[in-house]
């Protein structure tokens, strides 16, 4: 029974947003996918080559390597950032000065430029004067010392740590906001029913904020597939492409080596991959509610 009034409200509520969004986001996305059909250097004449770029993307081992590295980052984000942020949000829900201080501190890496974060973590992992190797030495674990960022067998994992550390803050804020929204009566009622501790958490709180957790996972996936600035500062995608990610692979092709059409095809592939992963994650999380 959507009345005229309701319908016009829906239209007015959505149309300006959709208008701006379609014009400034969707049109460029489609446009970029269109460039993907051309052999184009970014300047000069364009040559239509059909699906060749897209086929080449799928055949390039480097694309798949970047994809694999990116999956690691997605996994680290989804299974690192989200649970840590959730745990912290439960502990830090009070509004005392102590909790405020801790919450603010945890958020602070976010306000810093990735250049600063990259430099600091570069010194932590530094092969000669690194804090980590120094710590290992002084703990008598000298044999565990590594060239954290230049040894391809560990560099991706070494990079995951700062990525998790850096991004916990926003999810913490999101979860705190969601947890605040649980009406106290529900909490009280559960209390009277005798639900405590972990049971209360799983039967009451998690379902109440499940939608927010789902959004957090989507943000995690899309953010991880687009991101490369921290890695760019720390390793530049190297050595020898060992820490290359999809977004840096796309950027290199587009702006460094005059393969604009190909870079556009890669970016369309990134959208497609993200879409599949987001849809998959939402499907997996649906059953729980």
């Amino acid at each position, binding site marked *: 029974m959507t009345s005229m009034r309701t319908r016009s409200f829906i239209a007015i509520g959505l149309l300006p947003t959709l208008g701006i969004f379609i014009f400034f*986001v969707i049109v460029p996305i489609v446009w*970029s996918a269109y460039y993907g059909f051309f052999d184009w250097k970014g300047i000069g004449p364009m040559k239509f080559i059909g699906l060749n770029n897209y086929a080449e993307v799928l055949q390039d081992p480097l694309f798949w390597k970047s994809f694999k590295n990116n999956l690691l980052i997605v996994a680290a984000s989804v299974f690192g950032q989200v649970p840590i942020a959730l745990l912290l949000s439960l502990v830090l829900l009070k509004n005392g000065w102590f909790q405020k201080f801790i919450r603010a501190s*945890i958020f602070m890496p976010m306000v810093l430029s990735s*250049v600063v974060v990259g430099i600091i973590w570069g010194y932590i992992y530094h092969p000669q004067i690194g804090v980590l190797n120094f710590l290992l030495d002084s703990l008598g674990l000298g044999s565990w010392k590594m060239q954290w960022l230049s040894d391809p067998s560990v560099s991706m994992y070494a990079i995951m740590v700062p990525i998790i550390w850096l991004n916990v803050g926003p999810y913490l804020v999101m979860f705190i*906001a969601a947890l605040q929204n649980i*009406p106290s009566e529900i909490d009280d009622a559960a209390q009277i029913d005798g639900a405590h501790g972990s049971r209360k958490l799983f039967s009451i709180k998690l379902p109440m904020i499940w939608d927010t957790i789902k*959004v957090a996972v989507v943000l995690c996936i*899309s953010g991880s*597939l687009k991101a490369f600035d921290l890695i760019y500062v720390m390793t530049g995608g190297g050595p020898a492409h060992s820490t290359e990610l999809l977004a840096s692979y796309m950027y290199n092709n587009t702006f460094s080596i005059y393969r604009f059409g190909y870079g556009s095809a890669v970016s369309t592939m990134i959208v497609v991959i993200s879409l599949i992963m987001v849809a998959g994650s939402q499907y997996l999380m649906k059953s729980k509610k």
Partner: protein
Amino acid sequence: MSAPMTRPLQPASSSRSEAGLPRFRWLKSKLIGAALTVYALVTLYPLLWLFISALKTNEEFFSRPFGLPSHWNWSNFSRAWEVAEMGRAYVNSFFVTILSLILTLVLGALSGYVLSRFQFRGKLLVMGVFMLGMLIPIHSTLVPLFILMNKIHILNTYAALIMPYTAFELPIAIFICVAYMNSFPKEVEEAAQIDGSGYWGIFFRMMLPLALPALATVGILAFLRYWNDFSFALVFMSDPKLKTLPLSLSVFATGYSTDYKLTMAAMALAVIPTIIVYLIFQEQVMKGMTAGAVKG
């Protein structure tokens, strides 16, 4: 939803009735507190490091990365401010960020309300379209956006940043708002409808205040994004008078070398507003419970 507010700020977790062994619980909470403190110091340290590094010489920056400067070079700040023309960039950044923020919050909350509380045909499609916007790496949209905005003659105006910023942040804003509003009980609107409020009334009087924590969350994320964006600011703003802060922060790197003392000083100066904004919005995030209880 008419129960009076009994425990406005009582935390949802840990209440005394759970306590088995008081002493054990005491110890546990102290341990957690200590662990949290250590973690907080680890996350806070880089900020401190930034400000200390901003006061060093370039030689000290490399020779003693974690040490204190032998002489506190306060002049780094004024030099960075001057060379990077940060004064004007500050004003521009504020202008662009705040306008984009208002637009994002108003449109995001309104669309979030519609998508969360109304059923209509095509809703899934609309949600799906918004989802797309979160997935594209922005670098590949630079050229199409440039051509597009050149055609409608808004390049070199503040709108060339405000519109794309808003458009790219809207999906996140909408998804956070929808998720948050989904958990409001139905009674919220029903009560209001009995009062005779129309949809706009419900939106302004009920939804906006209730969704304050979600909007504050969106606000924090959006502010950071707008304040720190380099790519759009680099490509769409060519008039030096309209330059925003992130461009000022990278003027000291020549490709072969970086003048770290001035880079750090400029970054330290640019980071201060984000800290203040975070602290202001954090207060709003925490207001949810009180607001919810009063309205209900």
